[in-house]
């Protein structure tokens, strides 16, 4: 197996997790920046539609590094699609596959189910709820909580912040409840 084929395979958690963890000291050492991604959504609001809302009155230009970081994340995703994508379908737990097949999902070629996440699906109740309402809740909830998986779970817990533990438990609980009780209903729409 060539190096490129080897690196194209999905990376195991014990490789990816520590690399993600190293982002914390990397950003601190590069320029005293605290790892956090959902804050970029706030900076976008502050830059584009501040509309006299006091929450968006700050010098967003100082947080340009954060916007550059997420621009990088987007480019990173593109580079993987160009050079490093795994030709194999996503391997998932057979139980999940069975559940998803009852919703008409059987294509695992992409990292997101293409039957649900596509442009025409925006006109269906299922697609509209998952993509539009889901996105809205991600934006609203992360800012209300003051951070997301990166800012609270990874950065906050690494720095032993108790409020971050509360937030992490809350969003994991929210996900468990929703994925098990509500997602099955939405998926059948």
């Amino acid at each position: 197996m060539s190096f490129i084929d080897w690196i194209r395979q999905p990376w195991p958690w014990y490789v990816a997790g520590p690399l993600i963890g190293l982002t914390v000291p990397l950003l601190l050492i590069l320029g005293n920046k605290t790892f956090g991604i959902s804050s970029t959504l706030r900076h976008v609001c502050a830059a584009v539609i501040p509309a006299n809302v006091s929450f968006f009155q700050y010098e967003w230009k100082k947080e340009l590094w954060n916007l550059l970081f997420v621009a990088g994340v987007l480019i990173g995703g593109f580079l993987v699609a160009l050079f490093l994508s795994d030709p194999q379908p996503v391997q998932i737990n057979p139980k999940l596959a069975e559940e998803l097949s009852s919703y008409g999902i059987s294509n695992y070629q992409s990292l997101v189910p293409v039957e649900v996440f596509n442009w025409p699906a925006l006109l269906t109740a299922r697609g509209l709820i998952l993509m539009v309402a889901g996105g809205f809740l991600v934006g609203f909830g992360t800012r209300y909580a003051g951070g997301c998986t990166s800012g609270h779970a990874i950065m906050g817990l690494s720095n032993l912040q108790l409020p971050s533990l509360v937030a992490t438990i809350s969003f994991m609980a929210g996900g468990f409840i929703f994925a098990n009780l509500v997602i099955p209903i939405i998926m059948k729409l």
Partner: protein
Amino acid sequence: MTNVEVYPKTKNINTDFETRSLDSSDFSVGQEEKPSWHMIKYLVAGILFGIILVKSEVISWFRIQEMFRLQSFHMFGVIGSAIVVGMISIFLIKKFNIKTVSGEKISLPKKTFHKGQIYGGLIFGFGWAMTGACPGPLYAQIGNGATVVVVSLLSAVAGTWVYGYLSDKLP
């Protein structure tokens, strides 16, 4: 905030030395005193981070559904080991008083507790289960070719805006 602009704006020199609100880590605490092209390092860091997110399939809707159904250890392994490595890193930074590349003391913002961490956390959890993406993966999914996720991202910006608009009235 004292905004005395004594330097030309184009130089991106920080003139605001006032301590930022301590309960928020949305803002940079460090002083960026280098010319703006140095900022490219954050773009490079983001590219590496994005590649890791995609290759570990953390951006996969399927992996998130597995995580919330306790059907796979993968996501717990990723997040758990990231926290452990982050913790050890911060411990070492504090113990050896490691400075930034420009010799500045590293400052770590403290978070203060408020009910939003519970309510907002739950709401974010709902959204995470729906989109299969927390904010980082939203960007990575778009780059990776799921262009429709642009709609989710714009919706997330709208959600953030609505939160900002309502923030004074929420518990």
